[in-house]
């Protein structure tokens, strides 16, 4: 599936380039206003690819091994140039952003050592009124950077149009989220959707129309929180092989992405479109970048999901907190998150791992033990 996905993606991007569009890659998780890139007539490329031993190892020429395995692997993709990743050659610009400091460092290395022109987009760490003011500055700055490339102004009506396109697309993903299908199937849809963006909408419609409920009665139902499961990661297989089924992806690839939608009243309020982006940024209280309320917001959100699920299905949910080794954002609070959820009698597994193959066995054992315990 992955090989086909990546090779098709190559042709998709190639076509876009033939239309004169620039490809703008980033690893900034849920913070990038893709609509602005879209409105400029460019294509955002989410770096959502999992790593492996080779990719991680090859990043050690640039960064110490105590860097998040995902960031290591992103660098590895550019230095190793593995098969099926030819589409990375099509990138015109790479966005350096501060989702976390690994994002800054890895993106900077990619731009510097692999000669990809750089764009900048930084955000504050809090959601205070002044942080919003700052966000406006960054939006304005990004707009100018994009306009410089484009050679003309980004019109407000184009941005409005893009916001609507992405909004419909994300709403559709929310529908997928509610389908009764296995976690792996759902995840693959999300991953593909996040590569193709709103162009994937027709396919999403078909998927929804043709979807058949997949029974998973003998599987234990789970929420995945923390770090995303990226394309080509074996983790989702391990979870399912161990008797688990992810019914809710509380991660960047998942709810953090598609829950960032506007209701129609706001969308049609004829607001300046930049204010819409601002509004969305302000509401992204679950984003792992934010301080100082991230932990509280996370606990509240998980509790709510679990309660609603129980109401709807009568079943309990366990939580897998996926921690990519050396992830600043997810790792530091993991013990505290566990404590808080356990106080509420919610089973949780802090699952820390890097992308090495050698980890598989140990991960399986831990997941199995957790699911057994549930």
């Amino acid at each position, binding site marked *: 599936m992955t090989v086909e996905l990546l090779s098709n993606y190559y042709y998709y991007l190639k076509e876009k380039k033939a239309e004169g569009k620039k490809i703008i890659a980033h690893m900034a998780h849920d913070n990038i206003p893709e609509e602005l890139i879209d409105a400029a007539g460019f294509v955002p490329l989410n770096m959502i690819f999992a790593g492996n031993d080779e990719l991680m190892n090859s990043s050690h020429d640039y960064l110490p091994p105590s860097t998040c395995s995902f960031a290591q692997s992103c660098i590895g993709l550019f230095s190793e140039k593995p098969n099926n990743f030819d589409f990375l050659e099509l990138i015109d610009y790479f966005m350096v952003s501060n989702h976390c400091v690994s994002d800054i460092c890895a993106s900077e290395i990619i731009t510097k050592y692999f000669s990809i022109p750089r764009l900048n987009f930084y955000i504050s760490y809090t959601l205070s009124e002044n942080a919003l003011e700052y966000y406006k500055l960054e939006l304005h700055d990004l707009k100018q950077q994009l306009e410089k490339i484009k050679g003309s102004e980004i019109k407000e009506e184009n941005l409005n149009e893009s916001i609507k396109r992405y909004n419909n697309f994300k709403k559709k993903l929310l529908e997928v989220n509610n389908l009764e299908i296995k976690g792996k199937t759902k995840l693959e849809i999300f991953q593909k959707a996040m590569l193709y963006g709103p162009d994937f909408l027709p396919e999403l419609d078909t998927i929804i129309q043709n979807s058949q409920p997949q029974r998973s009665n003998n599987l234990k139902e789970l929420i995945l929180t923390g770090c995303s499961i990226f394309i080509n990661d074996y983790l989702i297989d391990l979870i399912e092989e161990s008797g688990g089924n992810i019914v809710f992806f509380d991660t960047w690839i998942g709810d953090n992405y598609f829950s960032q939608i506007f209701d129609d009243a706001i969308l049609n309020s004829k607001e300046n479109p930049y204010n819409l982006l601002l509004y969305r940024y302000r509401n992204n209280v679950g984003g792992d970048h934010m301080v100082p309320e991230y932990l509280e917001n996370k606990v509240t959100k998980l509790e709510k999901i679990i309660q609603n699920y129980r109401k709807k299905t009568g079943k309990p949910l366990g939580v897998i907190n996926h921690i990519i080794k050396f992830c600043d954002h997810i790792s530091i609070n993991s013990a*505290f998150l566990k404590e808080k959820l356990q106080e509420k009698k919610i089973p949780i597994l802090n699952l820390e791992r890097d992308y090495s193959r050698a980890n598989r066995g140990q991960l399986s054992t831990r997941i199995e033990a957790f699911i057994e315990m549930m």
Partner: protein
Amino acid sequence: MSVFADDVVTFTSMLKMAYNLLVGNSYLKRKKFREKKKLIAVALPFSDLAYACGAISVFPVRMQIFEINKYLLALGSFSSIFGWKSITNVLGFLKKLEFKSINKTIDDIIDDVIDTINKKYNQMYDLGVESGIPTDFCYGIKSLYGMYVAKGKNVEANLNFTIRCSAWNKYLESLKTIKNPAKNIWIDVPPRNIGNSLEILTNNFSKAINELEDITGITCTDNRLREHFTLRNQICQHYKTIIHEIGASDFYPSNPATFAEILALLTISFHDYNSNVKRYAENMSSLVNEMKERIRKGIGMECSKMPRILITPIFGGWEPKSHEIIYELGGRSLYADWELLGFLENINVSNNSNPIEEYARFIMNISSNKMGCDNDTLTDSYLNLAKKLNVDGLIFFQLFGCHSISNCYKLLRDKLRREEIPSTALTFNKIGENVEQVKTRLGAFMEMFK
């Protein structure tokens, strides 16, 4: 045995600073309970606003009770009656008489100070890990969290500045998970200096000042701010003199290991100016005078043949034996993290300026031009200082678990190579854990200068 204690006898100000560092617990208790002063915790040198609002800043490790060498304790008590000046005279006199036991005692004092601080740091590290900080984080974060777990409840508030390091910002958030957490006052520093970011930061500072005023009940007037900034400017000026005038010269007022030791103690004590800015400023002034006086009299060490090595960064944790090892290998070490990151820059205090805005400008310079919002800027700061100090080599401490500063080494090495400045990276996890490896690596590195 310490290689430098002999010199310390005539650096009373250094003894004083070391003493003040270690007796923080009783000093702070007195301030808090008798004088009803409000304590504000800071880490990294972000203590200025708290002082300007009438509070006392404290780097949390100083709330610990340290086992103080009994002689240093005696010196401290003696000083409270006769003053520190007389201590220098007494020690100097005893030393001249060449009482072996006296010399030994002085050596022990200084050894003890350094060991005591390091042991405490390591204890706090263990406590941080026991209390839930994953081992994957840097030494600084683990030990700081431990410090707050141990004593954080004694402060009224923590002053939290966001910086480019995500681990740092998340660690600041995690302080709330500690039992009886203090209030957290946040200062969100805009990541880049674009548009009216300076205005935004100024406004963030005004808000933080309001929160501090609510705690202290003291209005932070422009004059108060200017007065405080003037004092801290003096401190920074003295600090710069020590680094640039004395550190970059070829005649040191002491043996170079002592000199490095002083720089290391300054790095630690500068976080909170030992909780008393005026006293700290006086000590800094005397330290510079003592150094200059010795140089004038030709007391010290000619070290033009000793390669000058910049060791950095050390503020998040480093192996404190490094400068002794380098000294034994024929080199001299400089520690200058705060200068490198722009913390020693002047804050404009002219009457027609807005002091909050000037402070914002100062912090913005640190965050955008020195620490930088990327490694290109940060590595330029290392390079610029290395060139300015005309160093012969640079030793970079790569902290296990540091994903911010440690990650810049490859870029830095490339830049240093272009300038033909040799460098090496030493990995660090915990004080004392890797001394043998450090020795070997430094041995190999120092060979280059033979």
